[in-house]
């Protein structure tokens, strides 16, 4: 049961990705498995969320209901490809196994193995994770798993440090898995976090390989594994890495849509669903979703294709609608106000806007955090050593993705500017995590902007 809780939604996600393949794109096996993992976890969290708001999540029968819904959805997704199931299995499973020798591949394997060992080491050393894990995410998971029927004390203002207004994707996945396992074990949060951390690397590699070729994929994987503290933050068991995963997944799917996304409507819906997962993961996801839509609208307007953009935006919103619905229910019925927004007033906004010291501190910290993570170094390596002369043409997705990240950065800046907390404390406890949320997507888009010579055997 314990393993099935994880495998069921994952296979569901892979089947979903395969349905997308039938509709035009050709995701590589790695992409189907990594993006499929995110989709599956999203479906699982959605089902658990519905169960929670319906007040049935704690019933002994709920895991079985969950299993039946997952199985039915799986059959529904597998039905269109039943005739091609054999080639599907061959491409999705067997083609993952043969591995072509290359020095870069060896280096990637070694780095990956070390990173995984390091993650396991940290997870064993701190099975409850970092401060945010036990003060927020695992605490919520415990409330969900041990909960009483009436929504319990999880949203109580008494435990304000746990951000009662935060959405519930990560706690839902953990509590759902505990439900299936029938007990609380700290191996599960670590396994979920590990899957998201290394799923992020696999997703970046597979997305870049699909869009730009193997060398671009390896470049992305090296740069991401080399990001200082990526593994450490993964082992903290917080929600920042899952959030980064969903940001990247939405952007990867959009990029694979190509120039005419409307010809691949399920792809737009899937990208919307993944952006919705981000929205259900953490409050920053609530910034990402509108930022992505706005980025798409601006990119389409610049490319003089606004007529098509409205339909595309509609499909994305439709894809995200399950999580939008959960989010609205959470905000209306359960959740107290957001700590950052609650203290806002016009005089305070004006005061903070005109405070040069505050701007200076935020900018200084942002630059230092970016430099500390080594981001400029890795981008310089790409620019001076690995790019080809020809630049890749812009597509709506690349422009929209880049704009969305710029909007996100602006949003983060504004959050610090108007923060009710001590600015130095707020920056020191969160700047690196926020940067880590958008860095994988920024890296993906940066590498896409360069052309790598194709790998030839």
């Amino acid at each position: 049961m314990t393993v099935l809780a994880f495998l069921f939604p994952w296979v569901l996600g892979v089947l979903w990705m395969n349905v997308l393949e039938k509709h035009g794109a050709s995701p590589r096996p790695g992409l189907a498995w990594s993006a499929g993992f995110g989709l599956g976890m999203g479906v699982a969290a959605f089902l658990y969320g519905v169960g929670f708001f319906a007040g049935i999540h704690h019933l002994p029968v709920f895991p079985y209901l969950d299993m039946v819904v997952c199985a039915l959805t799986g059959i529904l997704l597998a039905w269109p490809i039943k005739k091609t199931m054999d080639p599907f299995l061959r491409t999705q499973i067997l083609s993952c196994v043969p591995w072509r020798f290359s020095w870069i591949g060896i280096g990637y394997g070694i780095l990956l193995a070390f990173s995984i060992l390091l993650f396991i080491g940290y997870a064993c050393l701190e099975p409850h994770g970092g401060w945010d894990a036990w003060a927020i995410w695992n605490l919520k998971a415990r409330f969900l798993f041990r909960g009483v029927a009436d929504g319990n004390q999880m949203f109580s203002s008494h435990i304000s440090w746990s951000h009662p207004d935060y959405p519930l994707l990560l706690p839902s996945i953990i509590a759902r898995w505990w439900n299936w396992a029938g007990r609380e074990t700290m191996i599960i949060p670590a396994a979920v976090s590990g899957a998201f951390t290394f799923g992020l690397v696999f997703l970046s590699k597979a997305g870049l390989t699909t869009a730009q070729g193997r060398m671009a994929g390896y470049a992305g994987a090296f740069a991401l594994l080399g990001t200082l503290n990526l593994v450490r933050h993964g082992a903290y068991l917080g929600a920042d890495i899952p959030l980064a995963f969903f940001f990247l997944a939405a952007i990867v799917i959009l990029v694979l849509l190509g120039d005419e996304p409307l010809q691949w409507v399920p792809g737009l819906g899937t990208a919307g669903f993944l952006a919705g997962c981000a929205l259900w993961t953490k409050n920053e996801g609530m910034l990402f979703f509108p930022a992505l839509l706005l980025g798409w609208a601006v990119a389409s307007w610049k490319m003089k294709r606004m007529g098509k953009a409205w339909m595309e935006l509609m499909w994305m919103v439709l894809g995200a609608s399950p999580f939008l619905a959960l989010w609205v229910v959470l905000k209306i019925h359960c959740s107290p106000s957001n700590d950052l927004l609650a203290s806002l007033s016009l005089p305070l906004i004006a005061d903070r806007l005109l405070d040069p010291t505050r701007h200076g501190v935020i900018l200084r910290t942002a630059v230092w955090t970016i430099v500390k993570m080594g981001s400029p170094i890795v981008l310089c390596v790409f620019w001076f050593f690995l790019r080809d002369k020809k630049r890749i043409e812009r597509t709506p997705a690349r422009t929209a993705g880049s704009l969305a990240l710029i909007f996100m950065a602006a949003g983060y800046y504004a959050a610090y500017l108007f923060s009710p907390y001590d600015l130095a404390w707020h920056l020191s406890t969160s700047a690196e995590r926020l940067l880590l949320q958008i860095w994988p997507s920024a890296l993906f888009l940066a590498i896409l902007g360069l052309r790598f010579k194709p790998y030839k055997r």
Partner: protein
Amino acid sequence: MMRGMRSVFMAGRSLRGLIGWGLLAAWGGLAIIPPAVEWLRPGFHWPACASDQDNISNYLTRFDVLRSRIPPGTVLGYWGDKRQDLQTVMAFILAQYALPPSALVKDVRREFVLGNFLDKAPDEAARRDRGLVLVRDFGNGVMLFRTRTKS
């Protein structure tokens, strides 16, 4: 082997590509060092710190009996050590982490109050001042109090 070498050179333009990939690989390898060093330091205590024997797990087991005795969803008051530092803040938040679906309020004016003392348990006079009666001492500084009803 030659194929692998060739793939490296195909990456960029000959030497430049090789330098680029070398730098990228070194970058990846170097970035692992700081967290690995950080891990190795407490890692010397392995396996004493591993799995369920870590500090937080040990701390949480202090509340196991109490949790089984209180009705789910109860809101308990909280009374902790007098000093105000990071350790006492953590003690409170971790106590809450141990007790879902019940909640803790940092206030002694509740029907039931959790006492969580890392330093020294309070004496009878201190309890009386707060109007609390000891219901049960669970050991290791964990106690359950009840507010004394006014007669």
